């Protein structure tokens, strides 16, 4: 098909071919700096990665980050959408204002929060100080650093959930609520039996989308904490980068990457399946 093939060819060249190359490298001991020929080592890279305690720790960090951030975003985003949907005036203005963080580059977001969370002259600690509260080392303590990362990601992506939840909420037919109020149904009952079931399918799409994005996340970690302190905020993405571009173990990094791609493919399949269901339903 003359209209489709140029697009498909570019995708094959820039997405599929590189992944196949990575797949090949993942079975070798190739190093991008050492040069020299690549030796075939079978599943050596894969077994090394799957058995590595370091990788397990990064997987746990990633899991905490993904679950923490996506849960917070969903709860907050849905709550804001619900509050906005109950307003009759100024909805457009409110929605527009709430959407600003989402449109910013992760670089800008990361840099700016890094400045605001600075332990000495950051505005957050300054505000805590004027409230008479203690200072927090947001980005330089192991536990708080991961929490900071979750908070910043939540700040940026709550609007995403809000936007989609709002679309779902405004699409709920008014007559359902009217029928319910004739029946003198309680507010909670209406929320549970009308609002939630109707909005949930769309919300699930948003949640899955965010989960995939959060799993892939690299730039925010790179800017905000650079994986530190220690390795406390190193996600899988960030670890792959270190293995590939600081350790130059290209073969190992490729195997690592292929394993991540497998996870993404599974998540994407679930996402696409729900998307398909939503479109047909």
């Amino acid at each position, binding site marked *: 098909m003359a209209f489709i093939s140029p697009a498909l060819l570019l*995708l094959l060249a820039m997405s599929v071919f590189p992944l196949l190359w990575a797949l090949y490298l993942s079975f070798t001991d190739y190093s991008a700096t050492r040069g020299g020929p690549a030796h075939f080592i079978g599943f050596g890279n894969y077994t090394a990665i799957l058995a590595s305690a370091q990788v397990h720790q990064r997987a746990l960090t990633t899991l905490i980050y993904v679950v923490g951030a996506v849960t917070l975003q969903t709860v907050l985003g849905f709550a804001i959408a619900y509050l906005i949907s109950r307003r009759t005036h100024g909805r457009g203005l409110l929605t*527009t204002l709430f959407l600003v963080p989402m449109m910013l580059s992760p670089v800008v977001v990361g840099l700016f929060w890094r400045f605001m969370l600075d332990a000495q002259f950051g505005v957050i600690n300054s505000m805590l100080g004027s409230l008479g509260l203690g200072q927090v080392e947001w980005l330089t303590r192991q536990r708080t650093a991961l929490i900071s990362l979750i908070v910043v990601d939540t700040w940026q992506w709550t609007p995403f959930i809000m936007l989609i939840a709002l679309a779902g909420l405004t699409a709920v037919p008014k007559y359902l609520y009217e029928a319910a109020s004739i029946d003198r149904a309680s507010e909670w009952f209406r929320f549970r039996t009308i609002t939630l079931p109707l909005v949930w399918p769309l919300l699930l799409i948003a949640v899955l989308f965010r989960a995939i994005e959060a799993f892939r996340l690299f730039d925010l970690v790179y800017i905000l904490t650079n994986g530190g302190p220690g390795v406390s905020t190193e996600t899988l993405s960030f670890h792959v980068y270190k293995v590939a571009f600081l350790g130059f173990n290209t073969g190992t990094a490729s195997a690592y990457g292929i394993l991540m791609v497998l996870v993404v493919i599974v998540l994407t399949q679930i996402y696409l399946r729900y998307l398909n269901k939503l479109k047909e339903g």
Partner: protein
Amino acid sequence: MAVSVDEAVSAGPVRDQTRPTRRLGGRGRSVLEIALLTVLAVVMLFPVLWMIETSIKENRDVYAVPAEFFGFTVTMEHFKDVFVAPGGGRSALSVAFLNSAVVAGVSTVLATVLGVPAAWAYSRFAVKARKDQLFFILSTRFMPPVVVVIPIFLMYRQVGLIDSKLGLILIYTAYNLPFTIWMMKGFVDEVPAEYEDAAMLDGYTRLQAFRRHTLPLLVPGIAATAVFALIFSWNEFVFAIFLTSSDSVRTAPPAIAGLIGGTTTDWGLVAAASVVFALPVLVFAYLVRKHLIAGVTLGAVRR
């Protein structure tokens, strides 16, 4: 069923007058909800306001402890530093902004030129395994960039595309293509195929029919899609930082990120550069606010 920000505004004020009388305590609750929304809005917007404030503060005010919210001296020095080098002439940052504009612009045009015909074909013709193809196309966009960049880096090193604008343009085109196809397919679906069929009965070829009848109706959709592609490329960081290194090629995101990392960071300059960088994005995003849901879900969700 198209829900947009605009539509969210247009709900009539009728309900507002009836609610307080219908339910006791309605007004109190309403006040509480408005208060809650206001607090949330302030929390969400504060970092942006703080960034703008920092960009117009003098350095001693930027590092003031406790932080100064009001009553500082306004200066435009940081914005001057973004564009003018200390010794006069153009700054490295301004070159980076220009590179960003070129890379984002050209890759958007390419993605549109490749993506629109493909979207039209997927919408109009009985393509074999259409759904599988479309899902495959979308899933290429979900690949972790850090993983993709490893083989791309090796590939570019082989063919001499490392540290070149062309290399970035190619990868950004591939990155925006899935989005363009999905988003545009939605727009093409909305234009009845009968228009083209009727034109073909009048003796036009399929392509002529598309050009004369469908394309003019698609222009707003193409514009919105291109604006999103522009924003995505403009904001992109991972490919940019790994595939480019020299000042003459580097785009704005890695250049701005490069402002930190030394022994001292000029946060006023970082803030000003961020404001200059983010402003066009916000303006463009405002222009396409009607299509925001489709845009941010890569064209997958449109209701």
